[in-house]
């Protein structure tokens, strides 16, 4: 029996893990290949030829730009709302113990724990009941609701690591609560908030299920893509847009990872 700590993995496990990761990544790589195909009408593989012309075609499509613009605006404002609400909630839950604390964390998680279609249809019937017409703001309302949890999770994890004595020390040295927040708390939770904000942005930018219920006639980029998936009209343009969406969503995820990676080394973290 081997008992050395650096024993290498059994071959079967290596193969299974490798195949699993390949299963997760190959389909996404295929998107990159198809963006360059010369085939217009079908999903033929291997592509008969390669071209860059669809990038120019997609660039000149006003509907793509409009959808992209709407998605960016919705994601930015939803992220801002989620940052405020999520941070407040995280601060309240982690700094104090109060009656119903567990309920608050459950309430924050509920919008993503329940299937999106339930959130979507609930909001839609509430809008029609209150006679609120669909607009930019109804989309933001839906998105911010489920983005709060991402910010909340990141902020709660960081708040737990900030030592309480750090805040008391600041107060003892004569800073008031606002100065303590500005100079002690904010620098400590800053990267966690940035990471949470980036993930919230990625989540909102990509959301389609709730959006179909709250958008009315407008189309965000995912709605535009969904229409192309159900009734394909411009396959090459869809291929290019799909590739751009992959690239755009990878950046915030990588950014969020690098921001929270060293989270353990927050100053004063060792209690």
């Amino acid at each position, binding site marked *: 029996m081997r008992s050395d700590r650096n024993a290498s993995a059994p071959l079967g496990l290596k193969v299974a893990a490798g195949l699993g990761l390949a299963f997760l990544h190959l389909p996404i790589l295929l998107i990159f290949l198809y963006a360059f195909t010369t085939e217009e009408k079908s999903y033929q593989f291997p592509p008969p030829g390669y071209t860059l012309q669809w990038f120019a075609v997609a660039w000149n499509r006003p509907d793509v730009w409009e959808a992209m613009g709407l998605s960016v605006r919705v994601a930015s404002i939803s992220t801002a709302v989620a940052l405020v609400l999520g941070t407040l909630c995280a601060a309240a839950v982690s700094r104090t113990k109060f009656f119903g604390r567990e309920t608050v964390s459950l309430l924050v998680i509920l919008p993503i724990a329940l299937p999106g*279609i339930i959130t979507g249809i609930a909001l839609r019937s*509430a809008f029609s009941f209150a006679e609120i017409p669909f607009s930019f703001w109804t989309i933001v309302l839906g998105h911010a609701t489920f983005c709060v949890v991402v910010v909340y999770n990141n902020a709660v994890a960081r708040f737990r690591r900030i030592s309480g004595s750090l805040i008391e020390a600041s107060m003892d040295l004569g800073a008031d609560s606002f100065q303590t927040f500005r100079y002690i708390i904010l620098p400590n939770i800053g990267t966690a908030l940035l990471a949470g904000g980036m993930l919230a942005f990625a989540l909102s930018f990509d959301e389609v299920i709730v959006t179909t219920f709250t958008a009315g006639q407008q189309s965000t980029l995912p709605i535009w893509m969904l229409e192309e998936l159900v009734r394909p009209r411009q396959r090459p343009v869809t291929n290019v847009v799909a590739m751009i969406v992959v690239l755009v969503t990878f950046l915030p995820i990588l950014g969020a990872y690098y921001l929270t990676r060293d989270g353990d080394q927050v100053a004063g973290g060792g209690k």
Partner: protein
Amino acid sequence: MSIVTDTSILAGRTGPSGRLSDFFWRNPRILLLLMLTPPLLWLGVIYLGSLFALLLQSFFSIDDFSGLINYEFTLATYKQLLIPSNFDIILRTVLMAALVTLASAVIAFPIAYYAARYAKGKWKVIFYLGVMLPLWSSYLVKIYAWKLILAKEGILTWFLAKLNLLWLLEAWLSLPVVGGSSLSISYTGTFIVFIYVWMPFMILPIQASLERVPGNLIEASADLGGNPAQTFRFVLFPLALPGIIAGSIFTFSLTLGDYIIPQIIGSSRLFIGQAVYAQQGTAGNIPLAAAFTVVPIVIMGLYLWMAKRQGAFDAL
């Protein structure tokens, strides 16, 4: 003397922000209330409010002749869920969610185990990002990628043709339930895409629970004569179970409510999400749509309750 006792307690702060700061320090409950009000107003009033309004509507019924909603308390709409065509939808969805969850656990386990026990340093990062990137990348793009793969003229057919295995695909497609005229319009296709899209949610909770298993426990089992299968069955699997259950909450719930994947890749037979969408949209039958949404809520409620008893929440 009096000067010393005075200064040992700092004088109150001056200026509006200083006074406000002192006020909050003395009354932490008011600060707490101020912090909690905006998120609770948003989530508790807007979100929970609309959720309850929706649930309430499931107790109304629709008038068959006028198509208007009859605002009288009744269980008739719930009775409609039990008629065979609707009940089939529920059964089909729950069965699919269960199968997707099982298959996801089987595929996710080796990845999680390797990442937890053998991956070190750079490889740990690669595994982590290798799971996070597909998990977070665009839902629709992932479905689109599978449309490219499963299409008749797509990469899978090409690949099987190269291996001279096309007969296998055709034999599979000619099977009664799982088959169809092409993979992209069959249950098999729906199943594969569901696994692809939701399986990453299974990996991280399993990995978290496996990381808490000390390596010498596995060695002890081997030293005591357990072969790898026995070690897995009696040591590793029971310890990983809370993680598997935690992950299954995601895969099960997400499959249960999805209506876009079966619409794009699948046969024309409906799932719960599609039924909800059709009832509230073209059919205009909000009460029945609401009653359909109650099904996943109740199932998830039971599921979460059982998961909590198994201690799955510690693995999240």
